[in-house]
Structure formats: C-alpha cells, structure tokens
C-alpha cells in the first residue's frame, strides 16, 4: 500500500492538484489524469485523502466538483434567465459547463462572471440562431451591469432653459454609467418582455431594433427606441454636439423635446456641457 504523500507535497502543489481534480474534467479520476498530463506527480485521491465511511475519496471529491459546477451555473442562470428559458435547461447547462471551462472565475465575487457569455455564444459552431441568443445575452448582461453601476440623480435642465437657442445647439450630453444603448438585429427586448410576462416564447425573425437600459436608483428600465431616436442617441453617446446629432433626424421639434424630456427624466444623461466656441472654448457643465 502506498504511503500518504500529503506531507511530501508543498501546499501549493496539493492545492493545484485539488483544484484541477475539481474543475478540469468530467470525472475525478480523469481530473487526476489531467494532473499527470500537465506535470503533476501521479497521485490517486486514495493516497492523499482519508477514507470516509462507505464513500471513497473519489466520491467525496465529486461533491466539490458538483458544487463547483452547480454554483457557477446557478450564477449564470440568475444573470441570464431569459436565455436559459430560450435555450431550454439542458442546452443551457451544457453551455454553462463549456463557458465555465473556458472562462473560470478569477475574481473574489461573481458579479462579473457572465460578462463573456454574449461573445461566447457567437463562438458556438453548432448553435442555431447564435446571433439572436448572443443579443439576448447582451441585453441581460446590460441589465446586470446597470444594476451594479452608479446611478446619479437626473440632471437639471433648468440651466439649459436659460441658454439662448443658438448656444443650445452646441451642448453635448454625457451618458451616465447606469445607462446602455443597444442595437440588435433581432427584436430582443420584445422577446425578453414576453419572457417576463410568462408568454409563449417563439424565436423571432430578424428585425433591427434598439433599446436603452437604464436604472433610476431602485428601478431598471428598458426603453424601446424608434430608429430616429436610436440614431440621435447614438450620436450623442459618441460625443456629438446636439446640432450635429440632429442632422437628418426626421422629427418635429415637439417630438424631439418630448424625447429629451423622457431621456432626462430616466437619468440617461449624467451631465450636459456647453462649449461656447465664440468665447475661446469656455466650457460650462450643468
């Protein structure tokens, strides 16, 4: 019988072995094999771990392995509930298993664990409608990001009201950290709403859509945008002054005023700045 080897192993080697057994393969024994193939000394769990009643050390290690996958899968299910519903439980679990292997957590917490999932979905060669699923994941990830972003109170537009009409065209809007503008090739927000309503889910046909995700303190909003709204807001996000952003926008002044009123109320903008080009570039931030 082999003697215990724990004392011969530095702690780092033991921890590296155990983490690989837990995380690298479909079974504990295969995990040990993975260790062998990557330069670790050969070691069976039986040589390192005490027997425990009727269960072998391998069976006990499997508890950690199951817990690892279950914990991270649960995290992804919490962050991507509509995606899970759209894919179905089994497909989602398979996706998670592959994602967890490709993007193991390196952070003290799991807040950002799912951030690579939208791109990961695009890399799945056998997944039909991968673009749609990726966009759905983008929307759900935007909700997570906005939940954790700092939301400032809506900006005051009083100063703007006092600005003369000509200067007003030079203002620039800064989009807040708790706001995301997303444009999709599929009607993703409509699908997500159907999920929230417990309605029947049907994979949609392609259609260009845009949505703003924004949080006002305790409430998350998803605001569908008309094409003209999306164009205007996109230009503002990119830093265009109002004058340039409004170029070719087909809407009445009243409509545009109503849009800005709503966007401001929802806290999409965190600051407004006015660059007075007639006065040596003096900048005022409201």
């Amino acid at each position, binding site marked *: 019988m082999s003697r215990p080897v724990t004392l011969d192993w530095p702690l780092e080697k033991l921890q590296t072995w155990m983490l690989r057994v837990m995380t690298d393969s479909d079974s504990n024994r295969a995990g040990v094999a993975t260790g062998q193939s990557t330069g670790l000394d050969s070691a069976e769990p039986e040589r390192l771990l*005490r027997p425990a009643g009727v269960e072998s050390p391998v069976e006990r290690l499997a508890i950690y392995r199951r817990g690892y996958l279950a914990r991270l899968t649960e995290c992804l299910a919490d962050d991507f509930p509509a995606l899970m519903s759209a894919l179905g439980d089994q497909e989602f679990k398979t996706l998670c298993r592959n994602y967890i292997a490709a993007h193991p957590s390196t952070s003290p917490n799991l807040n950002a664990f799912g951030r690579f999932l939208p791109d990961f979905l695009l890399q799945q060669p056998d997944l039909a409608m991968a673009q749609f699923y990726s966009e759905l994941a983008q929307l759900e990830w935007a909700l997570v990001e906005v939940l954790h972003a700092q939301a400032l109170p809506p900006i005051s537009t009083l100063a703007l009201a006092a600005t003369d009409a000509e200067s007003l065209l030079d203002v620039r809007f800064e989009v807040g950290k708790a706001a995301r503008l997303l444009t999709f090739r599929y009607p993703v927000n409509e699908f997500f709403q159907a999920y929230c309503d417990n309605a029947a889910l049907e994979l949609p046909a392609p259609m260009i859509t845009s949505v703003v995700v924004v949080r006002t*303190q305790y409430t998350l909003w998803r605001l569908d945008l008309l094409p003209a709204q999306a164009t205007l807001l996109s230009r503002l996000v990119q830093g265009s002054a109002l004058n340039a952003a409004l170029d070719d926008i087909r809407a009445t002044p009243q409509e545009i005023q109503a849009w800005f009123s709503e966007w401001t109320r929802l806290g999409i903008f965190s600051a407004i700045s006015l660059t007075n080009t007639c006065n040596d570039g003096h900048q005022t931030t409201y």
Partner: protein
Amino acid sequence: MKRFGLPNLGVGLGLRTVHYNYILEQSPPVEWFEIISENYMHTAGKPLLFLDRIAERYPIVMHGVSLSIGSTDPLDYDYLHELKTLRERVKARWLSDHLCWTGVAGKNSHDLLPLPYTEDTLLHLVKRVRAVQEYLEAPLMLENPSTYVEFLGSTMTEWEFLSELARQADCGILLDVNNVYVSAHNHGYDPKHYLANIDYNRVVQFHVAGHTHEGAHIVDTHIGPIIEPVWDLLRQAYGCAAGAAVLIEWDAEIPTFDLLMREVEHARDVVNDMHEQVPREAVA
C-alpha cells in the same frame, strides 16, 4: 459583556436580497444582520443602496467567502482594500471569513476548500492572518468550514488547528455548530468532542443553519429549518461562550421573513436558557 473586545450583538440573521423590502418597510425586531461581504464589492449600484439604508438601522457584521486565507497565492490587497472600505461604509462591528482556501494560481472555485492540518500549514496561516489583521487594523474571525474530505497527512485535528491558529495569530473564532455537525458526520467523529476542545475565550460568534442529508454524507446547504441535534450543539457551545453573538443562516429555498423569525426566536430561547441575559449593544 464583551468577548475578544467585541460587543454581544445578540441573535442576528443573514441579510438576503429577497428580504430587503420587508426589512425596510417593517423594521423587524432583529438585533443585527450579517452580510456576505463579496455581494457588496465590485458594485456601486442597487445592492449598496439597500445596504446603506439597512446599515442605518441595524448593526452589520461582514462575513467573507473569498479571503482564501489558506491559499498559497499572495494575499490580494485590492480585495482587502475593498473589504476595508466596505467595513468603514457600513460601520461593520467585525469581519469574518473561513479556515479554508478558495482557489490557487488566480482561479477562484468559490468554494470553501479544506486544508491539511499540519505544522507547515499552521505557520503559513499564522503569517497570513497576522498580515490581514495588520492591514485591516482589526481582528479577524475565522470560521470552521464544512468539509467532505480530510487529508491523510494531517497531524492535527481541525479543532486543535483552529484553536492553535487563533492563539498564535491572535484572531477570533466564528464557530459554526452546523458545520461541526456536518463535518463530524462526514468524517465519523463526535461533534461534542470537537466542541469540548475549542478555545472559547476566542469565540465571538456562532453560526447555526440547516443542511441536507445525501445518504452517505451531509451537504452544508444552509437550507433550514435547523434540526434539534444542531440546536443541542449550540446549547453545549454557548454554555462555554456566554455573550457570543448567534447568527441564523438560510441561503437556499429562502422562506418568508416570518418563518426566519421563528428560527431567531428558537435561538433566543437557547441563549436565554443557557445564561441569564447579558448586556448587549443598544440597537439603533
């Protein structure tokens, strides 16, 4: 009455998101809340908004799951900085984490993994606990984990290791009596013997929770209600640590707040049965 220089907070509850609104609307008579520290790190958003409001009304204790004090990776000072910042923000009464490691080579398993209890491991942890306490400028409480494997090379029992670590590193102990029950079942030792050999001078807090029998082993799921043998272990331990705080953990299949309050009342009965009321820090 203070233990390890820290106040007796009474019986508290683990703060969980599903109860935020209830707590803020109903102000239930809970003496304190324990948060999972990492749930409020790497965020500037909604979780912190709720926590700030609850911390205005209740004492908060921070309980971490990613310090990884037993890892051979270097201590993560960015993590410690965030921990310290959060402690100051919520005026946490103390901080705790686990006698475990959670990852190595930068990879985090988000599990509380067991250590071999040897002299070398002890030396490694004493250095790290001292470094953490020096950085945090506060004592750290370490909790005994639930474990499913034991290392053949261990030369100490867990209770010997934990007590010796607390003494050499001058840190406190968070004694989870449910974890004692779970590990004792899984490894075939007597939980009462474990509890009889703890250095209670350093025990500041107890955890009690539910668990799940899986046939040949028990998993520490924190699904309640708490079973009577675990309450019995709390009675035994609390009898040796009057004035320690007690916390109810319930982390999966979380029930209504009313049901949780029944567990709080049960814990209060245990505490009151074991000792006369001890002075507690006033609740805001």
